Structures are given as C-alpha cells and as structure tokens.
C-alpha cells in the first residue's frame, strides 16, 4: 500500500481521534455476535502417536507458525487423528491433556548433577555430563567385568551396573539402547514390561 506523507498524518490523526473518543466511552460496538476466532486456521499439522498407553491413538499436533525460518514453532493444540483406525479421532482424558505434558513446568531443560551428600542440583554441560558418566561407567566396568565364571566358561558379563529402559520411548531409541547396553555386557536390564 502506498501512503503519502499527507495521508499518513491523516491516518494518524484519525486513529488518535478515534481512540480518544473510545476513551470517552463511545467506542463503537464490536462485531455483535461473532464466535471466537478458530484458532487452528493457519497452524502447522503434524501426525503423532499418543505416548501414554498402548492403544497408541493417532494424534494431530497443531503448532504455531507456518515453518517459516523466523517463526519459532510451538505446539498449541493436540487432538485425535480422525483417520486413525483405532481411536478415530477420540482421546481419553490423558491424551486430551497432552498439551500440558508437552509444556509441563516439570520438563527438564538442561543436564544437572547432584554431588554426593549435596542438597541441590547444579547445572552442567552435555559434554561434561557425557564425559563424567563415561568415566564412571568405564571405571566400574573395568573393575567388575566378569570375563569367565568359576567354571572357567567365558561369560563376559558386567552386573554391577544396570539399565532401565523406557517403554514409552520409540523403537529406534529402544533398539539403539539395547545394542549399546548389550555391547557393554550388562545383564541387569529391564523395561516397564517387567512391572
């Protein structure tokens, strides 16, 4: 839109005048009976699966922005995927409340460390965290790895460190976890299927 200087002043004057009148209580009535604006009109849709129970309902997540480079995406709404053969768009109270899990105040933001006997967390970087954990793991493994049992059979196991995997994480995550855990010789290995 091309606006001349003169028009610009006019516009400013008009809006200034308009807002002053509004202050006096003569604001023009708003649209008299409009419904709340439909909030999903230009959000980005992403298909997902509910992470809670093993019905694994299909979800559609609606996030802010059109994925333009300068728009920071954030999920603003989640509802059932009507195409999904099992849930057909429905969700239970857990699934229908997923948005509050995604944005929970309890979401962890950065790696933390609690020293022996300490009463609080301290923040650390990922690199520090990985390095220190790797060191602890190696020291324990090197010290307690059992290459052969009493009978002299090769057993190559390490049982002083254990691993609980998450049965709400993806197959890909679980597969990689299994691969790594077994390569270390860990046997104290379980996931929620046990309980």
């Amino acid at each position, binding site marked *: 839109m091309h606006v001349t200087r003169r028009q610009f002043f006019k516009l400013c004057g008009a809006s200034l005048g308009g807002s002053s009148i509004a202050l006096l209580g003569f604001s023009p009535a708003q649209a008299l009976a409009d419904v709340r604006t439909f909030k999903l009109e230009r959000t980005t849709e992403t298909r997902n699966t509910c992470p*809670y*129970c*093993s019905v694994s309902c299909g979800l559609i997540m609606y996030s802010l922005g059109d994925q333009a480079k300068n728009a920071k995406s954030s999920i603003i709404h989640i509802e059932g995927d009507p195409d999904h053969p099992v849930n057909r768009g429905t969700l239970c109270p857990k699934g229908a409340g997923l948005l509050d899990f995604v944005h929970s105040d309890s979401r962890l933001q950065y790696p933390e460390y609690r*020293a022996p006997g300490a009463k609080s967390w301290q923040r650390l970087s990922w690199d520090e965290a990985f390095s220190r954990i790797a060191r602890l793991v190696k020291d324990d493994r090197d010290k307690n790895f059992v290459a052969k049992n009493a009978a002299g059979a090769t057993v190559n196991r390490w049982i002083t460190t254990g691993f609980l995997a998450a049965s709400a994480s993806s197959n890909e*995550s679980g597969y*990689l976890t299994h691969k*790594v855990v077994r390569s270390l010789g860990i046997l104290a290995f379980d996931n929620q299927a046990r309980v």
Partner: protein
Amino acid sequence: MTNHWVDIKNANLVLIMGGNAAEAHPCGFKWVTEAKAHKGAQLIVIDPRFNRSAAMADYYAPIRTGTDIAFLGGVIHYLLSHDKINHEYVKAYTNAGYLVNSAYGFEDGLFTGYEPAKRAYDKSTWSYVKGPDGYVEVDATMTDPRCVMNLMKAHYARYTPEVVSNICGTPQDQFLHVCEMIAETSAPTKTLTIMYALGWTQHTVGTQMIRTAAMVQLLLGNIGMAGGGVNALRGHSNIQGLTDLGLMSNLLPGYMTLPMEQETDFQKYLEVRALKPLRPGQLSYWQNYPKFHVSLMKAWYGDAATKDNDYAFDYLPKLDKIYDILQVFELMHQGKMNGYFCQGFNPLASFPNKAKIGGALAKLKYLVVIDPLATETSEFWQNFGPYNDVDPTKIQTEVFRLPSTCFAEENGSLVNSSRWLQWHYQGADPPGEAKADPEIVAGIFLKLRELYRKEGGAFPDPIVNLTWNYAIPAAPHPEELAREYNGRALADLTDPADPTKVVLKAGQQLDSFAQLKDDGSTACGCWIFSGAWTEKGNIMARRDTADPSGLGETLGWAFAWPANRRILYNRASCDPAGKPWDPRRDIIHWNGSKWVGFDVPDFKPDSAPAQDMGPFIMQPEGVARFFTLDKVIDGPFPEHYEPFETPISTNPLHPKVVSNPAARVFKDDLEAFGTAKDFPYAATTYRLTEHFHFWTKHAKINAILQPEQFVEIGEELAKEKGLKAGDQVMVRSNRGFLKAVAVVTKRIKPLTVNGKTVHTVGVPIHWGFKGVAKNGYITNTLTPYVGDANVQTPEFKSFLVDIEKA
C-alpha cells in the same frame, strides 16, 4: 494381543477380567461399546471393584483379588462337565489328545518334581510320551487316561462352583451365570474375547492366570478368530515394542534369548532354540532361529561377526540367572551394584516396597536419570517431608539428570498392543537443551568408546566393534535405526527357486524375515520387525484406512508384526478343511491352491489342509497347549495359589501349599510380609482413568481432573472404622504407610471367603512428590517385594493392609 483393538468389535461376548479397559484404555474400550451397539454383544466384568468398566457391563460379578485361576479353573470345569466346547477345534488344534509322561502327577498342591530347598521344580516329568518315530504319541479319541484332556479334566474337577465361590467370594449363582454366558460362545459362529491387563500380570501366579484364560479360549475355539483371542491391553505406548526388541535381562530382539552360562557352544545354543517338529508335517517356525540370530549379530557387530568367531557369540553376556528388577534391586540393596541408568523410568514410584527401593538407590555410587520430566527417582535423595523422609547429606550417590525429548519432539515408531508399528513425526523443538534419547545414548557411548580405544580396558571388543555407521555418529537418526532393525542384504540374495535370479542386491532393505540367512549374508536388528522399512520405504508410516472386509483388518495402515499379520493364529479361524468356522468372520480361507483373505495368513501360504499342518506354527507340535510341558516353571496346568499376603491365611484347595511354591522370595522380603492377623484387609493397587502412571501429575489438566491421593473403601468397612467420605485415612502394610482421603463407596462390597468376611481396600497409584497435582505418598510404599514365578512381575495387586482414621 492375539487380535487387535478394532477387532474387539467382532466379538459376541467380551470378558474384562484382570483389567479395567474402560478406565485404563478408554479409546480401546470404544470397540467394546461398538460390539455392544452393532453386534448386540454382551459385556461381562469380573473385578474386586465395581469399576468404570463394570459401569458399562451387562453383567458384573465380584471376585477376591488374586483368585482368578480358581474362577477360570471353575469355568474350565463347567465347560468340560457341560460339554460346552468346540470339539473339532480342540481335537485338531490343541494338544488335548497328546499323551503325557506317566510319571507326571499332581498331589496336595504340588506337581511332581518339587524341591522345597530350591523352591523349584525338576520339570523332567512334565513331558509328552514320544513314539519310536521321535514324534509325540497322540490319542485322537481322547480316551486314554493319560491324554492331556483327561488329565485336565481331572485337574479341574476340584474346581466346582462351591469351591470357586468359597475361594473367590463370588456368589455361586453369579459364577454360574458367567459360566453360562461364556459357554454359549463354544458355538463356532460365536466368539468371546478376553481383555486383561495388569490385574492378571501383577500376581505371583500372573503367568498362569493368563494361561488359564488361554485354555478357556482354546476349549471354546476362540483363538485365531476375528472377535476372539486373549488380549493383553498392555501398559505404555511402546511396552510391546520394547519387549519385542528384547530390552529385558534375558532377551535379545525378536524373542530370542541370551545364552545361559552353561551354553558355551554356539551350535548347541542354536540347536536347542531351533525347535524340531514334535509331530510330522509341522512348520515349527523357530527352526529358523539361526537365521534370526546370525542376522542380529551381523547388524550389531558387522564385519567383526564372522563364521569363524561364531558370529561374535562371545560378545554376548551369558546369564547365571535372570537379572529382573526385583533381583537387581535386591543386589543393589545388598550394596552389590554401583551404577544404574533410568531412561524414562521412575523405579522409586513404580517398584514395590518404596523403602527398599530408596534404600537401594542410596547405596549406588552413581545414578543416571534420562527423562523429559523431573521424576521422583531423580530426587530420591531429597527430603520431601513425610513423602520422602531422607537425609540428603547421608546419601552419597552421584546423580546425573539428563533432559530428553518427549513424543512431540521426535520422529520414530511405537508398537501398540495390536502389534502395529506406527510412525510419528516431530512437531516442535525440545525445550531448553533437551536431547533425543538416541543422542544421549550415543553421547555416552561415543565417549566410552573413545576411552576404550585410548586406554583399553576390560574386554573392549564388543564396544569398539559395535556397528555405528550413522551419518552423524553423535545423533543417530531414527530413520537410520529403523532401517537397521528392518535389516538389509549384505550380499546379493537370490531366489531359492531360481538361484540365477537376484531378489535383492547387496545393501538393499529386506522385504521380510523370510529373506534372512544364517550365513552372514543378511543383517537384521529385529527379525519380527522386518518388513517395517523396505525398499518401498517406511511401511510403518502408511495411512491407508481401507477395510474391505468390514472386520477392521486395515492392512494398509502402518505395519503389524509379524509380516503385517493382524490376527495371530488366523489359520485357526478355519476348520481343518480350510473353511471359516463362521462365514461372517472370513478373514482367511483356503481357495484350493493357497490361503487367501483379508488378513495375512499366519501360516505357510501354500500348505493345503490335507497336509495337516497345525495352525500354531511357532510350536513344534503345531497345536496349542493345554498342558504346557516345562515351558512355565510353576506347573504344566495352572493351579490356584493364594497371594503371598492372603486374607484367609490358607489355601482351601491344599492348606499345606498356600502360595505359589515356585515363586522366588528373598529372605528380607519374606520377613516383611504381613499376616491377616495384623493386616486384615485385602488391598489392591490400580490406575485411574484421569491419570497415566506418574506422568500426568505433571500435566495441569489431569491434575485438575484428579488432584489428590485417595483410597477407596466399601461402605461396610467405613462404617466399622467410623470413616466417612472425605476423611483422612491411614493405610498401613507391614512395609510402610500412607495417608490419603477416603472415598467411601457402594462399589466395593465385602466378600465371604472360606467362611470369613473379606474387605477390599483400593489404592490408586498416581501420586508422588513431584508435579502439579497435590503431593502424596508413593503407593508402592505398601506393596510386597515378590514377583510372578515365571516373569517376576511384582504382586502389586494382592497384599494386606490395615486402615484407620488418620
């Protein structure tokens, strides 16, 4: 699940027992309401509490917690004594006619071979009679007193309606009414589906409860049928997937098992798992075990797994026993563990006897918690008043807490209880510095590998040789991992019928596990998932909703293992001649030259009915087992044993053997059991529909819907104790106590058991000391530290408490 969620709509009768589908799986329960609305189906709910599922039931019967085997054993007795079974099915598709070792027996609560000192059985007598041809002897007439059918009849003859009612507390008329309803589905054109969950698994006889249900279904001819089956509703979104991928102490991906330490010979290791057929003409699909195993080792160790080193057999740790969580925390409590990783798991809240779990964690040198949320476990060292009364200064455990992404922030697949692998997509970036789990695992692993490369150390071979061909080593892509577990050809694969024809070129993705080789020319990270990501792309991401049969077999939606099959054992939906038992449930049939239909046949596609191949192709017999040989450790037939904390202090069937004699109990835990004298009420823990485990108390909406911890007690008990709704009540077990609001209800009724009034106290699990819901006590403060004899799932569902006004 043998079947799948949508298939429940095909049932004529739905039995919800050992689960509360309406409460815990509402969107799956929809298919029950669909069956009711469109098929006129009836719903039976059997539960200690009149729960949300019961509110929808056409018939509800109460039962004392932990007595489901007695109930279902009574159903077996009813079906057999009233001749309400599918004879042709039982004869052709089960081991009812198989002859059993004459030394096998059962007396006074014990099967043959019991060794009290070990609390274990010598199972050698739990076997078939084999003929000179090496095959099992079968009496097709089922007249031989040593055939499975007759042994089964004898075993359950004791489970009369009087006995069932006396043990379960279910009034006899109600029990018989349920039997009558169930018996109707022995007609070939009627099906019963059974839906269960943790109400069956979380007992010291959990495995056997589920087996009893399977036996009922086999007698009725309901396994393999659309609208039939025994359906585990399961817990977490990917609890099926992680089990399929073998993330358990003794498993490898695809239900392969780790070697025991005695199994030093690779070939023998393979042989005992590659089961030879026990009857002529049977497929016995596990014969392919070597192909699955070698391909796995090629996927993990690549060129380091060679024929010469038995495909890196030594890289696998060998078991001396199973390190299930109860065993591990026992060791931890004894100070024998130094490190522990909790990836998206909250053991302090989830495991029994919280005091023991917290005490065990405090003995660790280091704990690494990987989670999107601030869990109780990650702060087990922090004082939260009465909810976690510890002194941080006395706890020397180093704790790392690493933020991971949640579902919304990653690509990947989950396996639901229908065995569907469904792909999902990232919709937003994770908060703060949170990383995806594969990145975190890679981050730790790469540092460790670097240390081993630099410093050497204990047996570094499996670590330095682990395949890691990911484009960005520090951040393996879910797509790369999915392709890896699907498997690929390492050399050109040719058609077995025509060796000149190359089916797959080296490097190409496998179409299915049928292409796997045991010569190292294929790599596959999880054979049952093979077919999920083929040369056609990501099969898990398919979204075709077409359902041509109207029975809900949407073969174009996602990928179901194995081989995109939707109903397991579906060959059994047809009679031996290959014709569907019920024409309205025609999922597959024999068309004269092959098996065709709306599902992928769970069968050799070209095996004609005349060839007599059994429908249970994973079994070496080809048939289903009523008598389960030595496959479960506490008896070839399920037997009712009381919970370890029993309100009646005896077992009316055999007072000398009260609880499961083969269940493992640690000494300290034995001492921590309470008796009915001090703790007179039967307690059970459970979930509420508004919450999911210990997650949703972090979500405001769910915290609003169910804000504060409560326990449920019946009106009669409340009256005795002077309690009214809204009062604070203290619940004590021999391991600890909790205080919560009393919900007084008509929905829990006292039961008369063995001449005694038994009250039930219901304790929902969802509270803790982190999150936005009101802080509460960890329910597992109360629960006993003992697990199912076979799989060590803790007995969360049956224990003893006392209550008083707080």
